[in-house]
C-alpha cells in the first residue's frame, strides 16, 4: 500500500516536473503564451475532451473502458442540430440530447455489468453504432444557424473572462475529485477495479455501480457534445470523431492503470495540463500536426511503460533480496542445529 502510494506520488511528481518544464519553455519561446486570453483558449480548444476525461477516469479506474464517448458526443451534437432544424425549441433539444446520452450509457452498462460482456467489445460496438445513428440523422450535411444565445454560451465569456464550458469543467473536476477520492462510492469503484470478484463476494452491488459509471459516462459525453456544438456553431456527421483516443490518452498519462484500480484524478488533472500546455506551446511555435502527434505519442508510451518497468525492476530486486535471505537461512540452519 505504501509502495503503491509512493509510486503514485512519484508519477505525479514526474508529471508536475514535465508541466513546469513545458511552461518554462513555452514562456521563453512564445511571448503570447502567458496572456490570459491564450490561457483560456488553451482550455477552450479541448474543453469537451477534458470534461469527458474526468468521467473516463471513473470508467478506467473501475476496470472498464468506454470507447463510445466520442460517438455519443457526435450523436448528441447531431441530435440537437436535427431537432432544432425541425422546429423543436433549443432547451428541449438539449434535454433530448442528454437523455440520448443516458440511454447510450445505460445500453453499454447493461451489457457490461449484467451480461458480463467485455467493455472493450461493447463500447467498440457502441462507438460504431452511435456514430452510425448520428450519420443517419444528419446525412451528408452540415447544420448550423443555432440561436445566438446558444452559440454565445459556447463561444463568449460568461463569468468574467471565463466561458460556460470552462466553469463547468472546473466544477465537475472538484465534484469528481470529491466523489472518486473522498467518498464511499469512490472507494467502491477502486475496489471493483482492483478485484471485481472480491468486491462481489464482499456484498458490493458491483453491476449497479458499473451501470452507474457507464450512465454517467454517457451523460457527460452527451453534455460535452452539446458544448461542442455550441462552440463550433455547426455540426456534421463526423463531429468529435476520434476524440476517444485523445481522452483515453490523457487518462492513461495521468497514471491511471488500464487494468483498473490504480490512479487518481490529481494525476489526470496534471496530465490534462501537460497535454494542453504542450499542444498550445507547439501550436504557438507553429510545430506541424504530425510532430505534435508524435510528441504526444511518445509521452503516452512513457506513461504506460515507465510504471510497468519500474515495477518489474522492483519485483526482481525484491526477489533477489528474498533469495539472498533464503540462502542466509539455509547457511544458518546447520549452525543452529
Amino acid at each position, binding site marked *: 500500500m505504501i509502495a503503491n502510494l509512493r509510486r503514485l506520488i512519484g508519477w505525479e511528481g514526474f508529471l508536475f516536473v514535465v508541466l513546469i518544464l513545458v511552461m518554462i519553455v513555452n514562456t521563453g519561446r512564445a511571448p503570447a503564451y502567458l496572456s490570459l486570453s491564450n490561457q483560456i483558449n488553451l482550455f477552450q480548444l479541448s474543453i469537451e475532451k477534458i470534461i469527458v476525461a474526468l468521467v473516463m477516469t471513473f470508467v478506467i479506474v473501475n476496470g472498464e473502458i468506454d470507447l463510445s464517448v466520442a460517438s455519443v458526443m457526435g450523436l448528441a451534437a447531431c441530435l440537437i442540430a436535427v431537432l432544432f432544424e425541425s422546429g423543436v425549441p433549443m432547451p428541449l433539444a438539449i434535454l433530448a440530447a442528454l437523455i440520448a446520452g443516458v440511454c447510450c450509457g445505460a445500453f453499454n452498462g447493461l451489457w457490461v455489468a449484467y451480461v458480463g460482456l467485455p467493455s472493450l467489445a461493447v463500447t467498440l460496438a457502441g462507438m460504431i453504432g452511435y456514430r452510425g445513428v448520428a450519420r443517419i440523422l444528419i446525412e451528408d450535411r452540415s447544420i448550423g444557424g443555432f440561436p445566438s444565445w446558444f452559440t454565445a454560451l459556447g463561444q463568449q465569456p460568461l463569468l468574467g473572462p471565463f466561458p460556460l464550458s470552462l466553469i463547468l469543467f472546473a466544477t465537475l473536476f472538484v465534484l469528481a475529485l470529491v466523489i472518486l477520492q473522498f467518498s464511499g462510492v469512490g472507494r467502491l469503484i477502486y475496489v471493483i477495479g482492483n478485484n471485481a470478484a472480491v468486491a462481489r463476494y464482499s456484498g458490493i452491488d458491483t453491476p449497479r455501480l458499473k451501470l452507474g459509471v457507464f450512465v454517467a459516462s454517457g451523460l457527460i459525453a452527451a453534455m460535452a457534445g452539446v458544448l461542442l456544438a455550441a462552440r*463550433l456553431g455547426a455540426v456534421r456527421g463526423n463531429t468529435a470523431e476520434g476524440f476517444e483516443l485523445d481522452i483515453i490518452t490523457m487518462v492513461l498519462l495521468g497514471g491511471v492503470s488500464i487494468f483498473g484500480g490504480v490512479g487518481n484524478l490529481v494525476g489526470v488533472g496534471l496530465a490534462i495540463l501537460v497535454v494542453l500546455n504542450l499542444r498550445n506551446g507547439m501550436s504557438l511555435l507553429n510545430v506541424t500536426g504530425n510532430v505534435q502527434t508524435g510528441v504526444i*505519442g511518445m509521452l503516452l508510451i512513457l506513461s504506460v*511503460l515507465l510504471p510497468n518497468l519500474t515495477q518489474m525492476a522492483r519485483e526482481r530486486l525484491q526477489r533477489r533480496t528474498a533469495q539472498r535471505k533464503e540462502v542466509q537461512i539455509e547457511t544458518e540452519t546447520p549452525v543452529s542445529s
Partner: protein
Amino acid sequence: MLAIRRNLLISISIIALLLAACGAPQTQTPTAAPAPTSAPAPTSAPAPTSAPGGAVVSATPGLNIDMILLPKFLGIAVFDQANEGAQEAHAELRNPGKLIFTGPTAENSVAGQIETLTNAATQGVKAVMLSNNAGDQIAAAAQAAQTAGVTVVTWDSPIPSAQGETVFVAQVDFNETGRVMADMALSILGSEGGEFAILSASPDAANQNAWIAAMKEALKEPKYANLKLVDTVYGNDQSEESYKQALALVDKHPNLKLIMAPTTVGIAAAAKAMTDEGLCDKVKVSGLGLPAEMVSYTLSGCAPQFALWSFKDLGYLTYHLTYLIASGALKGVEGERFTAGRMGAYTIEKDPTRPKGLRVLMGPFTVYTAENINK
C-alpha cells in the same frame, strides 16, 4: 512476475493500437483530380472576368505581414505546390514577416484547423490563408480571428456560409473544365476529328459528372462537329479497374482515337494501358492529370496533352490577394480589381455557388505538353 509481464504485453499492444489509430494511413489522398474540394457548382452564366471601371490595385512590396498558409492537412503534394507558389510571392513582395506553412494531421484536421486559426490571433499573425476542411464548423473560429484583426482568405475550399472569410480564391470554373477538355480533344484529333471515349471516375462523382456535362455542352459548337463521343465508362478511380476499362474501350471501338479521362487516376492508368499494349500510335490519352505521374507518357507522345490547374499559381495568387487585404490596399469587397504579380489582373466578384460569398476566380487551366511538363 508472469502477471506483470502479461500486463506489460497488454500495455504495449494497447499503446500500439492507440498509436496506430493516431497515425492511421491517410485515406484522403486525392483520387479524382486533386480533390477540387471547393466543388464550385456548375454555373450557367459565364464568369465575369473583369468588372467595368475601378482602379487596379497593386501591392506595395516590403510591408511586414506575418502570414500562415493552412492546408487541409499536411503530406499532400498539391498543398506543397501551393506553398511553393506562396513562398514565391512572399519572396517577390519582399515581405520581411514570416510565411508559415503548417497544418494538422488528416485525422485531426477539423480540430487542428480550428486550433491553428485560434492561435494565429494569439501569435499576432496578420493573415491566414485557409483551405477549409471543417465546413461551417470553422466559421466561429474564423470570425473570432477576424475580430482580432486577422485577415482570413480561403483557397481551394471555402467556408460554405462565407462567415469569417473575406474572399475565396477558386481554382477553376466547372464550365471551363468542359471547354478545356473539348479543346484538348480537338487539338489532339485535329480538324478531321474522329471517335473518342470518356474514362471517368465513379458514376456518381459530382465533379466529374459536372465536367463531362460541361464538355458535352461545349461539343455542340460547330468547331467540334467532327469529334464523336462514342462511350463513357467508369474505372471508379481504381488503377486496376481503369486500366481494364481503357483496354476494353479499345476492343469495343475499333476506330477509337482518343481516351479522355477527367481524373488523375484514370488518365495515368489509361496511358499505362496504351503504352503496355503498344497502342499509343493508334489511341491517344488526355484529360486531367498530375504532371509528375504523366511526364513519361507525355514525352513519349502517348498523352500529348493533359490539363490541371496549377496549385502553385493558386498559392501565388492567394498570397497576393491576402497581402493586399491584410495591408489595407484592398477592402475585400465586390468589384475591387488587383494585380497579382506575374499572373496579371483579377477581380473580386460574387461567388455564384455561395449566396453570401465572394470569390476570385483563378483559372485558366495549365495545359501540359512535352514542352512545359518538365518546367
